[in-house]
C-alpha cells in the first residue's frame, strides 16, 4: 500500500515541479517585485520598497485614467456582446432558413487573431480612406475623426471587441438553448403564451447559470484588453484610450520599471478576483438549489 502511494507521488512530482516553476514561482516572484524594484540585467539587485509602488499608483493620473477606460471597455463590450450573442442564439434557435450556414459564419470573427482584427477595424475607420467615412459621406454626413478623438476612438475599439467576441457568447448560449427542456416551452405555448413571454419567463431563467458563467469568462478576458487598443489607437490621442494592461506593458517592457509594472498587474488581478468571487458564490448557491 505504502509503495503504491510513493509511486503515485513520484509520478506526480514532475507535474508538481512544472506547476511550481511555471505558475506558482512567477506569481510569487512578481508579487515580491511589486513591493520593490529590480534592475534586470543591469547588475542592480532587488530593492525592497514596501508599499511605495502601490502608493504611487494612487497618485498616478495615467493609471487612474487607464483603470477607468478598462472598466468602461469591460462593462460596455461585455454587456453588448451578451445581448447580441443571446439575440443571435435565440434567432438561430427558432430554426430560420439557412440557419446552419449562419451558425458557422457567426463564429468566424472569434477565430481571427486580435491583432489582425485591430488592423482591419483601424483601416475601416481611417478618416480619409476608411469605409466608415466613405458611407457617411455617401449619406451626406461630414467625415468623423474616428481615431483621433477620444470617445470616437474608444468606440472603434469597443466595436472591434464586440465584433470579435460576440460569437463566444453566441456559441455558449446557443449550446445551452439546444439543451433547454422543451416540455415547459410546449406547455406555455399550448397555454397561449407569446414567443416573447416564453423567452422572458421560461427560457431566460433557464439560461441564467450559463449566462453568468459566460459573462464572467468574457469579463475576465476583457479586463486584459491590449491588442486591439494597441493596434487601433496606440492608447492615443495622448493616453486617453489606454487600457490598464497596455499601461502595464508600457511600464514594464518599454520603460523597464518592473516593480511598478508588477504592482499594476496585481491591481488588475484584484479586479479579476473581485469579478470572479461573487460569481463563484452565486454558482455555489445555484448548485445547492438543484
Amino acid at each position, binding site marked *: 500500500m505504502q509503495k503504491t502511494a510513493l509511486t503515485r507521488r513520484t509520478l506526480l512530482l514532475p507535474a508538481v515541479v512544472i506547476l511550481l516553476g511555471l505558475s506558482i514561482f512567477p506569481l510569487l516572484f512578481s508579487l515580491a517585485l511589486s513591493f520593490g524594484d529590480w534592475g534586470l*540585467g543591469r547588475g542592480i539587485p532587488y530593492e525592497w520598497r514596501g508599499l511605495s509602488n502601490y502608493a504611487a499608483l494612487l497618485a498616478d493620473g495615467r493609471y487612474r485614467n487607464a483603470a477607468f477606460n478598462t472598466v468602461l471597455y469591460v462593462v460596455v463590450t461585455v454587456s453588448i456582446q451578451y445581448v447580441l450573442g443571446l439575440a443571435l442564439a435565440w434567432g438561430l434557435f427558432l430554426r430560420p432558413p439557412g440557419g446552419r450556414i449562419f451558425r458557422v459564419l457567426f463564429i468566424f470573427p472569434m477565430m481571427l487573431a486580435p491583432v489582425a482584427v485591430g488592423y482591419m477595424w483601424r483601416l475601416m475607420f481611417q478618416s480619409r480612406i476608411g469605409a466608415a467615412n466613405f458611407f457617411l459621406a455617401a449619406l451626406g454626413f461630414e467625415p468623423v475623426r474616428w481615431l483621433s478623438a477620444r470617445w470616437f476612438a474608444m468606440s472603434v475599439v469597443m466595436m472591434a471587441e464586440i465584433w470579435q467576441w460576440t460569437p463566444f457568447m453566441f456559441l455558449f448560449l446557443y449550446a445551452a438553448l439546444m439543451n433547454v427542456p422543451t416540455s415547459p416551452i410546449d406547455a406555455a405555448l399550448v397555454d397561449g403564451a407569446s414567443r416573447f413571454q416564453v423567452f422572458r419567463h421560461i427560457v431566460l431563467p433557464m439560461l441564467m447559470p450559463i449566462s453568468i458563467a459566460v459573462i464572467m469568462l468574457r469579463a475576465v478576458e476583457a479586463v486584459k484588453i491590449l491588442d486591439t487598443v494597441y493596434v487601433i489607437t496606440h492608447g492615443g490621442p*495622448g493616453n486617453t484610450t489606454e487600457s490598464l494592461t497596455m499601461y502595464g506593458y508600457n511600464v514594464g517592457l518599454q*520603460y523597464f520599471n518592473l516593480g511598478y509594472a508588477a504592482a499594476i498587474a496585481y491591481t488588475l488581478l484584484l479586479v479579476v478576483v473581485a469579478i470572479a468571487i461573487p460569481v463563484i458564490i452565486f454558482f455555489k448557491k445555484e448548485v445547492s438549489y438543484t
Partner: protein
Amino acid sequence: MENIRTGRIWPVLKYGAALCGLIVLALALIGAGRAEPEPEVVDPEELELDGVELRLGVETGHALGDPIKPYVEEWEEMTGASVEITEIPFAEIFPRFMTSFHAGTDDFDVVIILPTWLGDMSQFLVPLDDLIEGDDMAAWDDVLPVCQDIVTWQNETLIMPLDCDLFMSFYNRTAFLDDDHRAAFEDSYGYELAPPETWDQYYDIAEYFTEQDPDLYGAMESMSRGTQTFWTGLSRMVGYVSQGEPGALFFDPEDMTPVINSPGHVRALEEWVRVVDVGAPDILEFDVGDIREQFPLNTGALALDWASIGFIPTDRENQELIGFNPIPGPTEVYDHDTGRWIELDEPNRVPYMAALGWGAAIPVTSNEQEAAWQLIRYLSSPEISLKLVSMRDNYDPATGYQPFRYSHFENIDGWVESEWDRDRAEEYLEATFESLTADFVKPDLRIPGAFEYLDELDAGLTAALAGEMEPQEALDEVADRWDAITNRKGRDVQLRLYRESMGLE
C-alpha cells in the same frame, strides 16, 4: 584484415597525433603571448566567413529595413557568411532590443539603433574605438564631427553611423512656381510666395493652399500617438526656446527641472495646434510613413520630416516636385533666465537632430563580434553608405539614411549615378550640410530613460493636437511626469549624464 591497433601503423598514428597536439599547443601559446595585431583593412572579398551566421535587428519597412538588404546580400555573397535580418516596428524596436539586453540573451550580432537610446543601452554594447582606429574602410575622419559626437557615450564610440538625422521642411516646388498661386498668395498675404522662413509664413502658406487648392493639402506632419510625433514637436519647439545655449529644450542643466512647459514650449505647441486646421484632413492620424508616401504624389504644399523625405520619386521622374528648406523658426525666442521674450531681426531657425541618426552596434552578448564588425564597416564604408543615402538601389518612397560623411556631400556624381538630377542633389545636400554644420545644431535627448521621457512627451503633444487637452495643461502634465522619471532614476545621476550629453562637463 589486420587490426589497426595491433598493426605497424598504430604507433605512427599515435605519435603523429601527439606531435600535432604539441604543435597546436605551442602555436596557441605563442599566439596568446603576442600583442594585439594592428587593425588592417580587409577587403570583404578576401574574408572567409563561410558558415558564419549573423543576426541583424533593424526597424521594419521602407525607411530602414529594406534599403540595407541589397548591400547585406552583396556582403553575404562576397564573404560566404549569412545574415538573418529581423525587422521590428518602430514602437517595438527599443523594448525588443532592451528586453534581449536585460535578459542577457544572445539574440543579435548587429543592432541598428538610435544614439538617443545610448543612455540605456551603452553598457550592453561593444566599444568600437579600437576597431575604428586606422580602419580605412570605416574611414572615421570622413564622418562629420557632429555625427561622430552623437555616437559617443562617455568617451567610447558605441555605434558606427549609417545616418545623421536632421529635421527639415519641404515644399511643393511645382505649386510654389505656379504663377496663379504666386499672384493670388501675394494678393492675400502681402508678401511673395516662397519657402517659409518663419512658422507664421508656414501657417499662411498652409492656410492658403488648403483654402484655394482642393487638390493640395496645406501641410503634412506626423501627429498621431506612437509614431515619433514628439520629434516633430521638438523640432518645432527648439527655435522658440534656444539660440544655441545647452539645456534650454529639455531640462534646466543646473538641477534637472523640466523646462518642457516653459512659455516658449507652450507657444510652440499652441501654434502647432493651429496647423491641424490647415493640414491634410486626416493629419491627426499621420505618421512619417504617410508623409513619405503622399507628399511625392503632389498632394501636399508643405511637409516636415527628416531629410528622409529628401527622396527622389520612386520612378525617378518629376524630381522638380520636392523642394528642400531648412526648418523655419519664430521671430521671438523665450529666454529662460530672464523669463522674457526676445525679439529677433532674423527668424531663429535652429536645426534639430531629431533621433540623432541610425547606426550599427554590436551587443556584448554576440559570439560573432569580429564578423559583425566586418559587416558594419562594409555598410558604413564611404562607397556603400553613399549608395544607401542616395537611394541607389532603393525604389521605395523613402530612406531612413541621410548623409553623414564629407564624401557624401562632395561626391555629387555619386548622387547623379543614383539617378538624381544634379540640381536637386546639390540643393538637397546644401540644405542638409548647412544645417548639420550650423553654429548651434541642437542634439536630441541622450540620457537613461530617454525613450520614456519622449514617450510621455508624445502623449502630451498628441493629446493637445487632438484637442483633448490645452497645450499648457498637456505640457504641465508632461513636466510632472518627467520629474517623476528623474526622481525614480536618481536626480544626481541623471543631472550628471544630462550635462555630459550636452557637453557641459
